[in-house]
């Protein structure tokens, strides 16, 4: 085990996979010479050169397409979007091409590709650079969607994503790149996609959180324990699609109360989906309506106070805990 940041854990995963499989390459804007906009690819170009670490023009649709074609032809591209906001330019390739290729080719053409990069808000970067797109991508059959919240998960899941034969949307969070955690150094360390992790056990209330809201939920859980003696269970699905609903349902059957904390907007969100699935699978176990903490229904404002107001935070989660626990 080594303590490292999520950024370095991702870097380690990329490095190990580039070494392990000659078909793995990373491509994106400023991933090579510049060492990555957020330094996730730091040092890789120097170590592996132009063939494996490729700077692209600012041409998201174009290089996403190159990735899809290369994947169809047997390579395992890792496509970095400088932020996922720009993936919207490439949505045609991701949704119309990558997601459908296996199906519409009758199972002939796999597209083993990872689209990765930071998703969600950063620090005061305003409306066009603060979007959380997991619900958007999770809506389409044929894509997997992964959102790690710890350094170990980041490494283990990215390695699994690269080895996966499907297109994987791998959503990081800029605010979290510097978070540290213990990470196994074993090159064979992977975390299977589609398996949730119970980040904290509890009995009174379940919070399903992902990415940035996981540390917030854990803080809220500690505070709720201390202040109201409420025991909160925190579940991180880690993979949004396929979703490990069984772990969530089992938890709700135990606690009877569910809160979903998420960075995306509420309407038609992943939280809405989880809420529905819990309603379907654990209706008779609910003691309170499922509560969601999401980003406000507005484009992200620039002003710091407004940005804070828009985003999920610990007090909002605590308020939800109190509400569902009838405190």
């Amino acid at each position, binding site marked *: 085990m080594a303590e490292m940041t999520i950024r370095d854990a991702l870097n380690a995963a990329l490095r190990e996979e580039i070494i392990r499989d000659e078909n793995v390459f990373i491509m994106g804007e400023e991933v090579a010479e510049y060492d990555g906009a957020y330094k996730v690819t730091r040092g890789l170009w120097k170590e592996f050169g132009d063939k494996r670490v490729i700077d692209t*023009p600012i041409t998201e649709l174009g290089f*996403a*397409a*190159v990735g899809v*074609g*290369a994947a169809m*032809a047997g390579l395992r*591209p890792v496509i970095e979007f400088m932020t996922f906001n720009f993936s919207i330019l490439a949505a045609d390739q991701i949704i*119309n*091409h990558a997601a459908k290729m296996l199906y519409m080719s009758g199972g002939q053409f796999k597209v083993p590709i990872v689209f990765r990069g930071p998703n969600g808000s950063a620090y005061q970067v305003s409306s066009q650079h603060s979007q959380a797109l997991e619900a958007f991508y999770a809506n389409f059959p044929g894509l997997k969607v992964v959102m790690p919240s710890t350094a170990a998960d980041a490494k283990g899941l990215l390695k699994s994503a690269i080895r996966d034969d499907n297109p994987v949307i791998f959503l990081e969070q800029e605010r979290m790149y510097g978070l540290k955690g213990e990470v196994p150094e074993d090159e064979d360390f992977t975390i299977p996609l589609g398996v949730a992790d119970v980040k904290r056990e509890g009995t009174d209330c379940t919070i399903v959180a992902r990415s940035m809201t996981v540390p917030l939920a854990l803080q809220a859980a500690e505070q709720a324990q201390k202040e109201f003696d409420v025991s909160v269970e925190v579940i991180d699905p880690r993979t949004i699609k396929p979703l490990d609903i069984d772990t969530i349902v089992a938890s709700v059957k135990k606690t009877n109360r569910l809160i979903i904390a998420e960075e995306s907007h509420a309407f038609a969100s992943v939280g809405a989906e989880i809420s529905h699935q819990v309603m379907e699978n654990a209706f008779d176990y609910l003691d309170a309506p499922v509560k969601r903490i999401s980003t406000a229904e507005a484009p992200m404002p620039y002003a710091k106070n407004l940005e804070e107001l828009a985003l999920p935070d610990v007090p909002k989660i605590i308020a939800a805990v109190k509400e569902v626990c009838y405190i």
Partner: protein
Amino acid sequence: MPTKTATRQEETIKTPKPDDGSTRGMESKTASKNSGKLAEAVTDTVDRKEAQAEYKERKKSQTDAIKNTDPELLREMLYQMVLGRVFEQKCAEVYRIGKIGGFCHLYIGQEAVGVGAMMALKEGDYVITSYRDHVQAMVAGITPEAVLAELYGKVGGNVKGKGGSMHMFSKEKGFFGGHGIVGGQIGVGTGMAFAQKYKETDNVTLCFFGEAAVNQGIFHESLNMAQLWKLPIIYICENNQYGMGTSQKRAMSIANIASKAEGYGMVGEFVDGMDVMAVREATLKAIERARNESLPTLLEIRAYRYMGHSMSDPGKYRTTEEIKKYQERDPIVLFKDSLKAAKIFTDADFEDIEKQAREATDRAVKFAEESPLPDERELFTDVLA
């Protein structure tokens, strides 16, 4: 790299109309004036005598080309063209009686492009194309049975009834599919060529798309990367002159698509798509450039689609005069005439080929009719690997 225009093109095609010059953007230094005028002319009704004159010129040059080509290959090329024609006519027929659902885009009139270009490839090369893909799929080696059963939505179809008309695929034959989003496959094809280079092969990718796709951003993004990274790809713009129901003239600020290569420092060439030998010749040159120098090429191959955009298109945006003009220069008639002039085949040979194509098509119909519908479980297979 300068844009080049096929020399034969310049010599043989005379434009009947004066160049209005104002908006066509043909100022570029290397693009020939002639090709500009030709571009002007293509969607206009022209005098049929002119067309007949062109035809004679074409036949002369094609006959010369034929003399230097293996007769077996020529026979196969003609067979594929005839099969393509007969097969697509059958598709139109069964579509009208409800055997085929959804969209159905026919290739009638464009056979010389797919056949001329694809039959210049070798083992290990890749092809990717748009939704007008039946004939190219067959040229790639997918059986008429599998293509028609796919159109019927049967389990015996090329992709088990899951893709339909627009999505023929064969990994085994290096056929990376028909794609339904205008221009999407240009980027994917660029990635296929990227992989060929990455794997250090000498293979190349043929990437087909219509002229309307040229207006999509992906065309420009792809050409930029292909030239920047020197990828072994041949972009083939099958200019059938209509993007769905809109003529090129009404949708593109300049007429000469080949000249767009210049913007990326790429070789661009204009080819007459009614002349299968000209297509073959231009493609061979481009393939050589890709294999030996790992450089891309943009070919604008001008053809004409006789049918509507799809089976649901009545084609009211053009005149029968215009269609007739192109039918005067029909690629199959021209090729047969040239083959006969070169004394390679006789009428009996043609009848034989025609018969063979009809039989193959009939077999395909029988197979498609008899093939069962996909099992309901197939709905959920191949969603994820």
